[in-house]
């Protein structure tokens, strides 16, 4: 009722106003007073407090007032716009009255088209009172993309790079085509400027690069992720309606060429994508649900939680496709494909081979084609060689019948079905007959002994794992460890690949050098080796090197190397058995040897609860230490 009365008031004010201005002679005066009227109405309706205004300007609530995530001054029409929603709103209204320059596409009406459309609706703007501006650049691209539906796209990690497990998300805008390859990908990423990897990493984390939105044909993105980077892609079809997708596109247009400083941990690709989704459907809250860091797979979980996802589709990478086709072939047949890639066998010879069925011939040639692409994308083959050999393979394959039945690759468990990212654990343990309680928190993400559902087997990525111990007898609290980074990649070798398995670990740990003396020290370990996965389990062998610094050492440091051998057995998804033997020989600084053995088992009670039992025994100098620990791990977001 109240609302309607307000409405009536506004209308009567408007009628009066119209009467007033129609009596005025000057069009400029009309415009000026109409402008003032709009500004006044906007203030009365407190539009600057409306959620949609905050979404469009990417405002976040601060301790006092607001601040926009956007850093580019071009994005604001008021010098104080970044911090002041009201001033920005009034300047935005004012800007619509500017006369268009030569290129009308730069006029705020075109440039900030989502703001314009929203204000037009909220204020019932009469367009005859404001200057005309034809936004043909926008119209052109809008027609070309013709967005009708949208999907959230998640390229999973690529083989042998657990850090990429954090993944990436982008939006796909689908037009009238049924084939999604013909859709467009909208992507937010950093624009790097230097060419040195460590500087990249540093700058990427700490906001030294600008991030911008880009749009590309989706097939380009598929090739980039699926073929060149060898990552599986997960596609989450959203239930956004056409008018909602259109709103998202309008907002995306506003963000074209607008930068914001890129921070890997929070203001990253996945976080910015959420603003686009909110601009499509403002009554959902996505951006407000993150506090400290944003892990892409978590954004998928909350998008599902908000009821936006209709269907999940798996798009296997070239890596998965090669493994899949290989599964139809015997070892000697794989060898033929390998020889074709190496140029030792002319594809025509396969056709003449009497020992092979037509099906086998088809698969060998299809595998050869995939492998040639695989090697070419990895830059192992030259373009000339690739073109020649790839063409020969295809010509040979074209003489065989087409594949009648499509055999579809079974999708693994999708990433959002894996355990949540943050882990809290409580442990009971006994270290050399001293009982202790242990408490740990690990913000991210996954270790070798957690359940593999939704994750890549043999990959570990740990960020800032903090463990505290309380010894019951001594009534003493100790910092047990603070692992800053602990990444392991156990990429199993197969017929075609002999990948390098590796580990990088750095952080603070406690070490008991003598029975009496233990202390915290800093450690950096890197290692490399091989791993092999068979039906028995996953085995690995790594050669490790370590630098350690700390007061625990007489010389304050120690440098060493050693071997690590491990075994992991996944028992039908509900449990994992593991064993590990490690030696370290410290040859610089304090010189001594360590031998360590451990074994244990994890049980997965459900997706987010795990119980783990570990036995560990080690020999340092001539002292033996043993440890038994039972931990309850709980995962949450």
């Amino acid at each position, binding site marked *: 009722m109240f609302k309607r009365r307000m409405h009536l008031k506004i209308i009567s004010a408007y009628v009066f106003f119209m009467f007033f201005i129609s009596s005025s002679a000057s069009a400029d005066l009309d415009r000026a007073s109409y402008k003032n009227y709009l500004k006044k109405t906007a203030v009365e309706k407190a539009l600057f407090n409306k959620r949609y205004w905050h979404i469009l300007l990417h405002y976040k609530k601060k301790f006092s007032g607001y601040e926009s995530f956007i850093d580019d001054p071009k994005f604001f029409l008021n010098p104080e716009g970044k911090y002041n929603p009201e001033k920005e709103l009034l300047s935005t209204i004012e800007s619509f009255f500017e006369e268009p320059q030569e290129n009308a596409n730069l006029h705020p009406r075109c440039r900030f088209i989502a703001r314009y459309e929203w204000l037009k609706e909220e204020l019932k703007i009469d367009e005859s009172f404001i200057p005309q501006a034809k936004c043909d650049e926008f119209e052109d691209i809008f027609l070309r993309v013709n967005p009708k539906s949208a999907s959230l796209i998640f390229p999973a990690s*690529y083989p042998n*790079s657990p850090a990429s497990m954090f993944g990436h998300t982008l939006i796909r805008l689908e037009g009238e085509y049924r084939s999604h390859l013909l859709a467009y990908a909208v992507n937010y*990423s950093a624009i790097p400027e230097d*060419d040195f990897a460590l500087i990249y990493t540093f700058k990427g984390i700490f906001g030294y690069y600008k991030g911008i939105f*880009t749009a590309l044909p989706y097939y380009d993105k598929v090739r980039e992720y699926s*073929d060149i980077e060898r990552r599986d892609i997960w596609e989450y079809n959203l239930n956004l309606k056409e008018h909602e997708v259109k709103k998202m596109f309008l907002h995306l247009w506003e963000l074209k060429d607008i930068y914001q400083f890129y921070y890997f941990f929070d203001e990253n690709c996945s976080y910015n994508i959420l603003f686009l989704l909110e601009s499509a459907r403002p009554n959902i809250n996505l951006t407000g649900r993150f506090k400290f860091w944003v892990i892409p797979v978590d954004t998928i979980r909350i998008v599902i939680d908000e009821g936006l996802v209709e269907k999940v589709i798996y798009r296997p990478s070239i890596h998965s496709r090669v493994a899949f086709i290989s599964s139809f072939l015997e070892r000697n047949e794989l060898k033929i494909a390998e020889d074709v890639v190496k140029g030792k066998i002319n594809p025509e010879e396969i056709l003449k081979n009497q020992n092979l069925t037509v099906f086998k011939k088809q698969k060998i040639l299809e595998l050869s084609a995939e492998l040639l692409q695989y090697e070419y994308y990895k830059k192992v083959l030259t373009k000339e060689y690739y073109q020649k050999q790839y063409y020969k393979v295809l*010509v040979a394959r074209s003489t065989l019948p*087409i594949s009648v039945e499509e055999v579809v690759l079974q999708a693994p468990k999708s990433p959002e079905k894996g355990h949540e990212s943050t882990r809290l654990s409580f442990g009971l343990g006994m270290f050399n007959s001293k009982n202790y309680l242990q408490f740990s928190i690990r913000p991210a993400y996954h270790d070798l002994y957690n359940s593999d559902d939704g994750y890549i087997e043999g990959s570990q990525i740990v960020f800032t794992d903090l463990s505290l111990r309380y010894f019951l007898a001594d009534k003493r609290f100790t910092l047990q460890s603070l692992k800053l980074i602990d990444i392991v990649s156990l990429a199993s070798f197969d017929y075609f690949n002999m990948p390098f398995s590796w580990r990088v670990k750095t952080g603070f740990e406690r070490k008991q050098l003598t029975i009496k003396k233990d202390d915290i020290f800093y450690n950096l370990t890197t290692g490399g080796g091989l791993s092999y996965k068979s039906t028995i389990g996953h085995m690995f062998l790594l050669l490790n090197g370590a630098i350690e610094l700390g007061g625990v050492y007489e010389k304050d440091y120690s440098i060493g190397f050693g071997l690590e051998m491990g075994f992991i057995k996944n028992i039908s998804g509900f449990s994992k058995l593991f064993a590990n033997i490690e030696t370290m020989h410290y040859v610089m600084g304090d010189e001594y040897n360590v031998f360590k053995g451990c074994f244990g088992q994890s049980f997965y009670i459900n997706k987010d609860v795990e119980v783990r039992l570990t036995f560990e025994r080690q020999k340092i100098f001539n002292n033996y230490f043993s440890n038994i620990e039972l931990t309850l791990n709980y995962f949450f977001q």
Partner: protein
Amino acid sequence: MKKVLFALLIVLISVNLSFAANARKNAGCGLGAMLINPNNDTLVGNLAMTFLNGTFGTQTFGITTGTSECDKPTHFVKNEKVQEFVVANMDNLAKDIVIGRGETLDSFAELLNIPVEERPAFYAKLHDNFVKIFVSENVQMAEVIDNVISEMSKN
């Protein structure tokens, strides 16, 4: 001293610092004309790409891939989408044609407005005439499109 060097070598064994940031560029109009990504196969390269969610591109709204350096087909000159698609997907298209199915082939058929019910026949025709369409390893986009059109018009 040898010990020191050995230990350091092992510590650094998997840290490979080479990382080149080539801009992406299109290389040609035939087979193997892929977008070239920076070589990120090194460990640190990998990490760096991860921290940036790396896409390397200069165009912000690369709605069109661009076919400016390619010859234009004589048929179908107006349909830029078909040309762009074939340039960008030629390797996968050729592969789908010889296998007789696939998403790239479906997209191609859709761009050519082939009705769904006519596609099996269309795919069979492309498969059977593969060497007439992809006449050599150096075939270019314009030729592929022209050859497809002329095969379609034969009956």
